[in-house]
């Protein structure tokens, strides 16, 4: 099957969003500060910081030791999520089924778009045909972007890292051509995959510096040394990769509330109650329940933003229960807020299960038990809830008296 994967790369996206209007800051050694309460590692870094040998994920102490005048910018997870969502929606508006990997990096399959935006004829080269799709994407994004095009997702990401803003890098052909393109590139590119983040360092220590050298090894040797990660890396280095899993198209529904004074405690809870009521009253909800929401806040004194995703145990449209689920999360906020936001991340089915006026306690208990078993099995597997079934309780042999069977709630 003909596959053309387009990778859209916005380098240092999180850092750029967190820096805001302070563009001159990005010309100096600057890095994203660790999130409050998180691991003490720096986030994305500027080019000037890279010159000092600082890279994302480096320990804060080591980064400051390498560059004493390194500026730390507070992270802005809410702002990043919002800007990134806006860009994804713009890409989806040209018909692209996108699979976001992380903020600043997204891939989509351009095959379905060639007839819509593509230029040239079937006889034209891949580069000619995909040029129209890239032009449409560039126009939709309205910001400097790097494009990489290749038959596999990994090769497309690698191409995007090598591309320039005005000159997309297009790898035509199939798996063989992708492997040929990847041959000279460093194994460090494997770090883009969270499952393979540790692999490049070990490979480099063994003297394997390029993806071509990695591809030349036998899969059995890599599996012996690195297990599944080795096999995945071998597949990627040979121009292969898994199929794209585009995200389902979603709607963006959000309510925000500016707090006149820095808000915390009970004041925030009142604000949250107001946001819930406003969100549930929106016409766009069309009677649907909410499955997952994102609670975020702009912190005072340019302290950045705070963001918390909450997935409800069951889809809700009841403001009281939503408040009960969301209010404890406010305590996790690292500083007082000057703006509180509540956005719908995923809708549930329309509200249909009406509760009885007088609830039967026995039935309610059975329902709660059934839900608890379902959640336990989802977390710990099918063996999480078992019951003892008496088979022959009077047997003189203990092993014949009882058995363990799955619990049917």
């Amino acid at each position: 099957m003909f596959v053309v994967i387009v990778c859209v790369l916005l380098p240092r996206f999180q850092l750029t969003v967190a820096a805001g209007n302070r563009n001159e800051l990005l010309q100096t050694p600057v890095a994203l500060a660790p999130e409050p309460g998180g691991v003490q590692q720096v986030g994305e870094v500027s080019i000037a910081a890279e010159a000092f040998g600082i890279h994302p994920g480096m320990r804060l102490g080591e980064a400051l030791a390498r560059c004493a005048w390194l500026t730390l910018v507070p992270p802005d997870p809410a702002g990043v999520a919002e800007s990134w969502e806006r860009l994804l929606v713009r890409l989806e508006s040209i018909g692209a089924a996108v699979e976001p990997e992380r903020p600043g990096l997204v891939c989509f399959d351009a095959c379905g778009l060639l007839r819509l935006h593509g230029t040239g004829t079937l006889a034209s080269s891949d580069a000619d045909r995909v040029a129209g799709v890239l032009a449409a994407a560039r126009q939709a994004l309205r910001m400097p972007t790097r494009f990489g095009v290749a038959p596999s997702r990994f090769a497309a990401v690698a191409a995007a890292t090598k591309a320039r803003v005005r000159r997309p890098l297009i790898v035509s052909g199939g798996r063989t051509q992708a492997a040929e393109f990847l041959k000279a590139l460093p194994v460090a590119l494997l770090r883009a995959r969270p499952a393979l983040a540790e692999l490049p360092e070990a490979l480099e220590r063994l003297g394997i510096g390029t993806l071509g050298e990695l591809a030349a090894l036998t899969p059995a040797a890599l599996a012996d040394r690195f297990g599944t990660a080795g096999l995945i890396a071998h597949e990627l280095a040979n121009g292969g990769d898994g199929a794209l899993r585009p995200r389902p198209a979603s709607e963006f529904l959000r309510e925000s509330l500016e707090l006149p004074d820095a808000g915390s405690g009970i004041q925030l809870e009142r604000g949250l109650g107001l946001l819930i009521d406003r969100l549930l009253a929106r016409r766009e909800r069309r009677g649907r329940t909410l499955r997952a929401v994102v609670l975020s806040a702009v912190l005072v004194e340019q302290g950045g933003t705070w963001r918390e995703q909450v997935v409800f145990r069951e889809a809700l449209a009841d403001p009281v229960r939503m408040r009960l689920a969301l209010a404890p999360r406010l305590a996790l906020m690292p500083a007082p807020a000057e703006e509180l936001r509540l956005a719908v991340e995923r809708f549930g089915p329309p509200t249909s299960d009406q509760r009885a006026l007088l609830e039967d306690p026995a039935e309610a208990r059975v329902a709660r038990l059934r839900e608890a078993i379902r959640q336990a099995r989802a977390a710990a597997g099918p063996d999480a809830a078992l019951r003892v079934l008496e088979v022959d309780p009077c047997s003189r042999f203990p092993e014949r008296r009882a058995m363990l069977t799955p619990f049917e709630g």
Partner: protein
Amino acid sequence: MSGPRRLSVPRRVAVTAGDDGSPLLVDSRTVDAVRESWLVEDRWWTERPLRRRYWEVVTTCGRDEVVFHDLVSGRWWRQR
């Protein structure tokens, strides 16, 4: 779980028995006292009869163990 699973399945145990057949050592633990002993015979009408001599013993470290001697195979098993 692939299917229903039996509870209290006997597990192999290393037992050193005395001349009268009573356990002296259970998994290298010295037996302090024999609390009870009983004989169970079943399925004697089949080709796979079950004959077990059960012993409930207390070891010097305070553990209460139930072991049995399979009189057909001659092996020792622990059972709770």
